[in-house]
């Protein structure tokens, strides 16, 4: 007899203009298993799960829930069929309590609200799975890990039998991730099916009962625990062997390029978000900033680049105090920034490659004739950069928003690197890039290091930090909780510092 799955996707195809995000994908979830959906960014994992959770409709294929064929018109349909998704970006209302968030949009809620009942139910539910949350606390008071638990409880409360988590560990410290995995195991133990979307191999090895690998929209393999190992999975994901190590050659120089002394600043809400931040970056050195996202990383980059005002302390670049300089003067002092938000800040989505590549040097003499832009010079430069950095373009004038993430990042790096800065600040430089593009970006950064550039690398990916950095500074709650040479530490110690511990406590 054919096995009845909790949910089964058959021959799912989803096309977006220009790409086939899912191509005849088969995927199923059994009772009580943790099924990992593995693939690089852009391989179609999120699209597939968005189809399962009712956010998108497939162009072809069937969704079968416990043997019954269904069509989801909205996430509401999927939720009532027992399928719940926890998105990477949480959908919670900060000014509501946990219980209020949980019942929001749930049509079983009685017209006369008895929030105490809901809170009691939630308290029982969370206790059963070891998800410690307080149903009456306000969401804005919660940490990222707690918010994630609220999202999970919300889905359990609505009776989800299949729980999908999209890159759940991206915002967690290693310790919080371990706790999450224990919780997930307990939920699977009660007969639910858990789907975890990830691109991290170590997570697959740790929790997967089964794994399905997606590559360019196709399901290339579904393997049971015991049938897979890291190398196989990496090979399946990428479709070719990956060179994992690139070694730094020369030691960093002695000359200080960037020096921060007790720097503080406010965030967009006007609250203190950096406090007493001090460190130095030397010539030819990559200084990594590790930390859970949202602990002041973006603000740190902006304060150095002059985009945000420092409320205390001083920032010194090459011996000049640049505190309080306008962004333009900071650029002129040799500071380049690859911002976190590629299309929102670093590039102009509706403009072509030429207009984007001259963003930083359009006012230089070699790019202008009097008040006019020298278009011919700009085109020459762009053609040169496109070749040197292997940027794939349909045309030099087509809007860059049509380019892939990897190419966008190359374009951005090409512009910032060729402005010959003394200091390059790279914020999450490989976020959303696939393995090949990541390698390309890392090699570019290492090349600049060899040429003597000082690089401040801000990343949430500890593997990346360890691979590239000479020294690692940990940012937690807007303070530097430790600075350690990368060969003298390990992921565990950095993880503790990320949670606010100090170096001494590790002993």
């Amino acid at each position, binding site marked *: 007899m054919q096995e009845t799955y909790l949910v089964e996707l058959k021959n799912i195809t989803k096309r977006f*203009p220009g790409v086939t995000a899912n191509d005849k994908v088969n995927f199923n979830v059994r009772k009580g298993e943790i099924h990992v959906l593995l693939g690089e960014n852009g391989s179609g994992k999120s699209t597939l799960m968005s189809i399962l959770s009712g956010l998108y409709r497939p162009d072809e294929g069937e969704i079968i829930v416990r043997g019954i064929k269904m069509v989801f018109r909205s996430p509401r349909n999927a939720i009532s069929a027992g399928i719940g998704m926890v998105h990477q970006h949480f959908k919670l209302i900060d000014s509501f309590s946990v219980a209020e968030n949980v019942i929001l949009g749930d049509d079983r809620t009685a017209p006369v609200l008895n929030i105490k009942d809901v809170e009691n139910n939630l308290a029982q539910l969370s206790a059963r799975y070891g998800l410690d949350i307080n149903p009456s606390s306000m969401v804005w008071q919660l940490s990222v890990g707690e918010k994630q638990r609220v999202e999970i409880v919300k889905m359990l409360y609505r009776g989800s039998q299949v729980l999908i988590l999209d890159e759940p560990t991206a915002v967690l410290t290693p310790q919080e991730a371990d706790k999450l995995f224990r919780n997930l195991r307990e939920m699977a133990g009660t007969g639910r099916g858990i789907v975890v979307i990830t691109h991290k191999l170590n997570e697959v090895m740790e929790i997967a009962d089964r794994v399905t690998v997606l590559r360019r929209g196709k399901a290339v393999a579904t393997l049971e625990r015991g049938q897979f190992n890291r190398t196989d999975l990496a090979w399946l994901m990428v479709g070719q062997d990956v060179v994992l190590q690139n070694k730094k050659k020369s030691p960093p120089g002695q000359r200080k390029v960037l020096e921060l002394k007790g720097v503080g600043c406010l965030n967009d809400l006007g609250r203190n978000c950096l406090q007493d931040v001090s460190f130095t970056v030397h010539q030819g050195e990559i200084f990594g900033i590790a930390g859970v996202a949202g602990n002041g990383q973006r603000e740190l980059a902006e304060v150095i680049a002059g985009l945000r005002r420092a409320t205390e302390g001083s920032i010194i670049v090459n011996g000049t105090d640049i505190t309080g300089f*306008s962004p333009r003067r900071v650029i002129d002092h040799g500071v380049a920034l690859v911002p976190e938000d590629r299309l929102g800040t670093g590039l102009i989505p*509706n403009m072509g490659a030429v207009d984007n590549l001259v963003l930083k040097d359009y006012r230089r003499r070699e790019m202008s004739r009097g008040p006019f832009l020298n278009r011919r010079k700009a085109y020459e430069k762009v053609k040169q950069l496109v070749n040197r950095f292997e940027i794939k373009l349909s045309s030099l004038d087509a809007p860059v928003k049509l380019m892939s993430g990897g190419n966008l990042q190359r374009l951005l790096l090409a512009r910032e690197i060729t402005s010959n800065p003394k200091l390059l600040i790279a914020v999450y430089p490989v976020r959303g890039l696939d393995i090949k593009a990541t390698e390309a970006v890392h090699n570019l950064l290492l090349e600049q290091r060899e040429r003597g550039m000082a690089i401040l690398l801000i990343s949430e990916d500890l593997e990346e930090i360890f691979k590239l950095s000479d020294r690692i500074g940990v940012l937690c709650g807007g303070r530097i909780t430790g600075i350690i040479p990368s060969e003298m530490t390990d992921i565990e110690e950095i993880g503790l510092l990320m949670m606010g511990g100090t170096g001494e406590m590790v002993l």
Partner: protein
Amino acid sequence: MILPGYVIEKRLTPSSTAYVIIPILSIILALAAGAIFLELSGRNCFEIYSRMFSGAFGSRYGLSETVVKAIPLTLTGIGVALAFRMQLWNIGGEGQLYMGAFAATWVALTFPGGSGWWVLPTMVLLGMLAGGLWALIPAIPRAIWGVNEIITTLMLNYVAIFWVDYLVFGPWKDPNGFNFPMTAQFSPGAILPALGNSRIHAGLFFGLALTVIFYLIIYHTRWGYEIRVTGENPNSAHYAGMNSKRNIMLVMFFSGAICGLAGMSEVAGIAGRLQQGLSPGYGFTAIIIAWLSRLNPFAIVIVAFLFAGLQVGGYIVQTSGIPSSMVTMLQGLLLFFVLGGELLTNYTIKRMPANPSGDDMR
């Protein structure tokens, strides 16, 4: 979702035939919608439309009147488009036009015998300066504190219009003008030269020259590049070290200055005096024109010409008892349909598959 079972999806690359066909279809549909109202009011819509068309474009006189109306529409269209390029919503073109007319008139009235070569250039300069300063008033709080310029520019329109009203009803009223709200006639030295014996004046040259200048500045200068970048993505502009505050003030100043020039050329080219109701809302129509042209300067000239034709055609049919508000309504319908049609250029409507088990789901 627009209708149950249908969804709107974005097209990645708008089809090139859609770019041409959709606006034409939209115009036809707008005329058809207008025809419903014409028929309801008991008139033959074909007759009205054909009389409007031949009135505006069919005769030498009609064509020259259309060009006369196209001049201020082009100038104000270019003026507001400059600000729109930087996502500054200058709704104050009308007021800036009035202030330009006011300053130009001041020159003409202060030097009544002035027939020197310098009179007209001074009127141009002061007219532009006044329009520019009028636009700078809302630009400064916008640049420094982020005060919404839509409201401030809109309100300043009425200040300018009533200021001119005050002058023509009061201190500047022509003592020999039979009590009409208008100033004395300018001396010949303060009147723009006309083309042959038509009413088409040198303002046409201002309009065409500014169209080319607008194009050169926006697409070929470093400053234009800053304007485009700031308009597309203010974050990028800040990140690239562009001085947005300075640019907001400069762009608004020049935007107002061009509208001011429109006012100057109206008083010095058409009326030869300042009068009440100088503009039938050119500065407002300019907003529609700038949008329909997608802020492209050459398209602005063409669209301004068509809108001028619509107005002239409207005047012509008014003689047969069609209310002038009918023309305003047609303008509104055109904007409505063309902008609505734009949705179809960039999006496509798709039918969703039926749901076999949808009904028993909650």
